[in-house]
């Protein structure tokens, strides 16, 4: 009997080696070729990674393309659906730009990353195999995925380069470190006093001042002479990747963060490049929406959630730290830090994965990068707000990212941040019932010294349509009013008392039809009944769309006229909730189908 069993095991091993039988957990080979997947990898890097990240984990509105989140959304659909979808919608704003072969190769690469095994049969537009039969959501190691591997805590630049150099044989040969050497002459260190009361000619933080006014007091250019402006110099920024930076200006020097992890210092008068630091290998890394400066250092967050400090005079990297525990997956960021009293206050993105560590805002010592405090933006059971998740186990509470830089009131010693929605988008997908899911889609006011929550205001309890209330918090003093204003994707302008978080009023700035009423005392909005009673597989129409009545482009507080100038847009869509499997390491940034109009 024993001999027979041994023979059987041996026979199975031989057959498995020949690909005749499948071992448990192994997917059938085929559906695409290795050549297709290999060809898809650089195409993905060039066209997709900026939003979906090199790790395919997704960020912001870009869903995960690997793991259980991907399979939850696509497992029951077919390769033909996937290719058609990518071809019809990607890259955003330039759908169909690539050749059909390119789209097929990218799809093959996605299938392989999800554990699919290449075979002899090429993937074609007509291939109609169910994705779950090819992929198994166990992401295969990415061959040469730039930025996939992170340096350790407080890695020195040399260490970082050494590790990046071992990332795989296909990693592009990107020069790292100082690629143009130079020094800013007569550099003046930036002080707390300068940050509180910036020189009119300086722009020292993302929104220029702590109140996030986004307003320059300079008045030499006006309506009468704007027509006389002439080009003096121009500077070509790096191409590729999401490019939404806010440069800084200090004493006539412009600090510019480019895509691809490239920081540059330029002479504002001549456009001459003073120094350049290529601080990371990811060629499509987004240019952060903001950078920061304090003392003699320049600070940037990377798209894979590192914090990097550079010498503002020379550009040389001084320290680098990795945010969060990476043993259970990566994080992302898309905006930089706020510096307050020598502390970098930094948000975090990419928190849709089911893991014990929750999304957080953290403060770091500007001289070393050492974490001083952190505030979890998701309340766990037993904590304040922990009972607002419909009894959902802590492991499956996700989202509440802080992907836009906050503001600060020096008198109150409070920093104000907006949080994104809980994940997955739909209540029915995340199984949170009608709970508010604190502290998602809220304004949180934190003590700068301790990180302690002073107050919160939940703008849309239990948000369910991917309409973040995450954007900038603008502080306005009007008479005795000390207000904080914000506008989320709903396009609703909210006014709160920034001392207490008390609701003071709201104004709908674009057409919306998702809320039927608002509580006049608290401002709490009430969804339409069909949204509350959502079901899987049903299309739910709504305006604005997930593109937002407002999105990341910031509003301005025009101080002379005491007016808020807000960039808005109008669009609508239908959303369709998808089932999300609740397993550790799973989760999903969106997991809803969308159709726009």
């Amino acid at each position, binding site marked *: 009997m024993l001999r027979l069993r041994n023979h059987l095991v041996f026979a199975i091993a031989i057959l498995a080696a020949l690909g005749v039988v499948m071992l448990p957990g192994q997917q059938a080979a085929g559906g695409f070729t290795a050549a297709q997947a290999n060809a898809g990898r650089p195409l993905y890097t060039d066209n997709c990674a900026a939003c979906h990240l090199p790790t395919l984990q997704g960020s912001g509105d870009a869903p995960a393309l690997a793991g259980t989140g991907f399979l939850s959304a696509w497992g029951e659909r077919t390769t033909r659906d996937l290719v058609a979808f990518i071809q019809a919608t990607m890259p955003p704003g330039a759908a169909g730009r690539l050749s059909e072969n390119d789209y097929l190769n990218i799809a093959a690469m996605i299938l392989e990353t999800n554990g699919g095994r290449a075979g002899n049969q090429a993937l074609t537009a007509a291939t109609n195999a169910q994705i779950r039969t090819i992929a198994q959501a166990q992401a295969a190691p990415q061959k040469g995925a730039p930025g996939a591997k992170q340096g350790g805590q407080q890695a020195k630049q040399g260490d970082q380069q050494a590790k990046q150099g071992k990332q795989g044989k296909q990693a592009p040969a990107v020069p790292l470190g100082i690629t143009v050497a130079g020094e800013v002459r007569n550099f003046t260190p930036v002080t707390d006093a300068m940050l509180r009361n910036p020189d009119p000619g300086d722009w020292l933080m993302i929104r220029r001042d702590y109140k996030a006014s986004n307003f320059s007091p300079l008045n030499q250019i006006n309506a009468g002479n704007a027509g006389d402006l002439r080009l003096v110099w121009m500077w070509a920024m790096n191409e590729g990747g999401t490019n939404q930076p806010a440069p800084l200006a200090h004493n006539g020097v412009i600090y510019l963060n480019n895509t691809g992890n490239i920081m540059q210092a330029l002479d504002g008068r001549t456009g001459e490049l003073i120094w350049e630091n290529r601080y990371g290998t990811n060629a499509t890394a987004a240019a952060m929406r903001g950078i920061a400066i304090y003392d003699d250092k320049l600070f940037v967050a990377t798209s894979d959630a590192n914090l990097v400090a550079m010498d503002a005079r020379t550009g040389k990297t001084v320290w680098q730290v990795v945010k969060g525990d990476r043993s259970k997956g990566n994080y992302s960021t898309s905006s930089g830090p706020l510096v307050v009293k020598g502390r970098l206050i930094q948000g975090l993105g990419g928190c849709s994965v089911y893991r014990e560590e929750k999304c957080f805002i953290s403060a770091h010592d500007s001289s070393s990068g050492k974490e001083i405090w952190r505030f979890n933006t998701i309340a766990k059971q037993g904590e304040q707000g922990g009972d607002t998740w419909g009894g959902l186990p802590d492991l499956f509470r996700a989202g509440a990212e802080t992907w836009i830089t906050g503001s600060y009131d020096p008198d109150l010693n409070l920093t104000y941040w907006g949080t994104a929605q809980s994940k997955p988008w739909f209540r029915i997908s995340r199984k949170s019932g009608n709970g508010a899911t604190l502290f998602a889609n809220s304004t949180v006011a934190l003590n700068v010294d301790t990180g302690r929550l002073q107050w919160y205001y939940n703008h849309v309890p239990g948000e369910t349509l991917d309409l973040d209330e995450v954007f900038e918090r603008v502080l306005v003093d009007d008479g005795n009013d000390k207000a904080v204003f914000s506008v989320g994707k709903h396009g609703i302008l909210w006014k709160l008392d920034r001392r207490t978080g008390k609701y003071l009023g709201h104004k709908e700035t674009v057409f919306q039809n998702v809320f039927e009423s608002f509580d006049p005392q608290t401002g709490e909005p009430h969804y339409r009944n069909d949204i509350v009673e959502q079901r899987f597989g049903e299309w739910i*129409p709504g305006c604005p769309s997930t593109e937002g009545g407002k999105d990341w482009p910031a509003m301005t507080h025009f101080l002379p006229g005491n007016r808020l100038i807000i960039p808005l847009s109008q669009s609508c869509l239908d959303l369709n909730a998808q089932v999300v499997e609740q397993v550790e390491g799973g989760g999903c940034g969106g997991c809803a189908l969308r159709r726009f109009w």
Partner: protein
Amino acid sequence: MAGAAWLGQFLSNYPAQAQGQETFKGRLAPVPLDAKTRPDVAGFGSATAVLAGTKLTVSGNFSEFKSPATVARVHQSRITGIRGPALFDLTVTKGMSGTISGSFDLTSQQADALRKGLFYVQIHTEKAPDGNVWGWLFK
């Protein structure tokens, strides 16, 4: 986005063209679409509805459809931007381009709903049997 177009019309108040007569207009644009429906859903057009007393007269045109039109209807919804049931059938050219027309009597409740922006016109085609273009009627 098409939504921006109809919102613009929604926000614009056009004076009535004649005494006792109210005019509503809508831009016909593709219904919400995804990768699966995108190849078959296309085209544009316009619709005008004139309310004189209780009589509503609808006219319009369309073009650049991917397949011939089959039916055209006036719908009433509970909330602007959300689909609702069909109220009336319009006469429609069975082609890739053409016209729509029809005339109906409205109840006072229906007339009020029209004034609140709750009416829309939708045209279906052979390849888009659930709707190809639609447009909300606003003053």
